[in-house]
């Protein structure tokens, strides 16, 4: 076997929950080259965003990606609000933080489980997803739906968290935290896990910046950059320090996400603690006229929405730049030279979200 074998990795592949195709050339079990073939999830949401009413778009953009759905909605709402010059009530800002961070917890737990499954650690996958269900219950209790929680609306939020629910969250999160702590210790301290992740797919900090990487991929390479530092919603009033790990390998990226789970729990509790009274959503008249750009931190990294309004109920342009889109070049730069067995692990280490990427 001296000549290269071509393996079409995907679009339907059990390790990948989503249809992306990586065309991989292998020499024995070593990857020579990997190129993505996209387009299996491209729906045309940017165009649909111009055809819909700008308020209906909130529901559309939530479905760009189901895993970070509410964060998409938040980014869109922030962009439209800033284009319209709307002031969001304080309570809505804090409630947004609660939901966004709950969403981040569920997304990161999902990632940790999927990564474990990528290297055949079934029981670890099951454990993470078992705990994740408790966060999903919190989301369903407060927002009425498990995955696509649909809480953001232009001007504020659509639902309230009452005292009873806030108490449930405050009681539940420390228990979840304890279990996650135990599992994260088991995951990050495990010999077999270290063998499969440490030193795999190394991206240096400078390379990550040059390739435009964002989010945990960037922070896993030791670059402390997190859009929450920019202080949208209520983040400016909450204590916030980005989590970084220096090594730039799969292990570091996993560790960043693991510790961000704890950080998010702290943020949820802090936001509930300081939850001000007040309106849920600002009333508004009129339509967006003018352009605005909003950058928020989704679980996978920096998410950017740019809206251009023209004074009608339809937008002139809705532009979405999602985190995975920015992380793919970094992924492609590390795949050549990997073993084939490491391809799923390294691919998952950027936590790819293809439905985001292709919109």
């Amino acid at each position, binding site marked *: 076997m001296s000549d290269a074998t071509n393996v*079409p990795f995907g*679009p*339907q*592949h*059990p*390790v990948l*929950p*989503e*249809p992306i195709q990586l065309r991989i050339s292998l020499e024995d079990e070593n990857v020579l080259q990997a190129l993505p073939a996209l*387009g*299996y*999830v*491209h*729906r*045309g*949401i940017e*165009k*649909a965003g111009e*055809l*819909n009413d700008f308020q209906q778009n909130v*529901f*559309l953009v939530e*479905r*760009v*990606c*189901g*895993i970070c*759905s509410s964060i998409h909605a938040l980014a869109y709402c922030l962009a439209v609000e800033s284009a319209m010059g709307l002031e969001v009530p304080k309570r809505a800002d804090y409630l947004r933080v609660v939901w966004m961070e709950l969403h981040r917890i569920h997304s990161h737990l*999902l990632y940790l*489980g*999927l990564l474990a499954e990528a290297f055949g650690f079934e029981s670890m*996958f*099951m454990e993470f*997803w*078992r705990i994740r*269900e408790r966060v*999903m219950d919190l989301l369903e209790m407060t927002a009425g*739906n*498990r*995955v*696509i929680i649909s809480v953001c609306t232009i001007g504020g939020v659509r639902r309230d968290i009452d005292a009873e629910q806030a108490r449930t969250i405050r009681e539940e999160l420390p228990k979840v935290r304890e279990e996650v702590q135990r599992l994260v210790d088991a995951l990050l301290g495990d010999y077999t896990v270290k063998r499969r992740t440490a030193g795999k797919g190394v991206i240096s900090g400078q390379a990550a910046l040059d390739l435009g990487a964002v989010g945990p991929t960037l922070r896993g390479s030791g670059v402390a950059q997190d859009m929450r530092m920019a202080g949208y919603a209520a983040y400016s009033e909450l204590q916030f320090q980005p989590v970084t790990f220096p090594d730039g390998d799969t292990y570091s990226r996993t560790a960043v996400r693991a510790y961000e789970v704890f950080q998010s729990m702290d943020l949820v509790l802090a936001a509930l603690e300081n939850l001000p009274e007040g309106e849920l959503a600002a009333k508004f008249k009129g339509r967006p006229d003018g352009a605005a750009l909003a950058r928020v931190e989704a679980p996978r990294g920096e998410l950017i929405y740019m809206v251009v309004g023209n004074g009608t109920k339809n937008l002139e342009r809705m532009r979405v730049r999602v985190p995975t889109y920015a992380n793919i070049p970094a992924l492609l730069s590390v795949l050549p030279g990997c073993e084939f067995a490491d391809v799923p692990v390294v691919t998952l280490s950027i936590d790819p*979200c293809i*439905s985001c990427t292709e919109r």
Partner: protein
Amino acid sequence: MNLIQKARMKSPWILHFNAGSCNGCDIEILSCLTPVYDIERFGAVNVGNPKHADVLLVTGPVNRRNERVLRNLYEQMLDPKIVVAVGTCASSGGVFHNCYNCLGGVDKVIPVDVYVPGCAAKPETIIEGVILGLEKLAKMPAKPRPGRTSAEAEKVEAER
């Protein structure tokens, strides 16, 4: 109920294909496998290989590029088989009804046996959907159909 019907009811092997979904339904399908819902109680396992599967769970509104992939996967599955469209998008296109690259529902491409509602479909509903589909699967004829010739199989493989 004879033995074969009972075995079919008790051993649904699942293939999951994401035909352009937002991931919401996909993670809910994965949730079905996990301890809280544990679909393996019903003998279901996610096999990830069309040749082994009995139940095809499709999510998403089906876009132009994966239409062919979906059709091939359906072709490669051996009879008897059922198709479960999971979620609103897979049933009718849902929120993507005016997206240019979407066909709007799995039933535009392959015959669908069960529609599972929800955006995203809840794990309980997905389990109910699979069970509902199995009732249909068990009743399918047990008569063997001549297998695909190897030349045809190769053609399908080449297209994949």
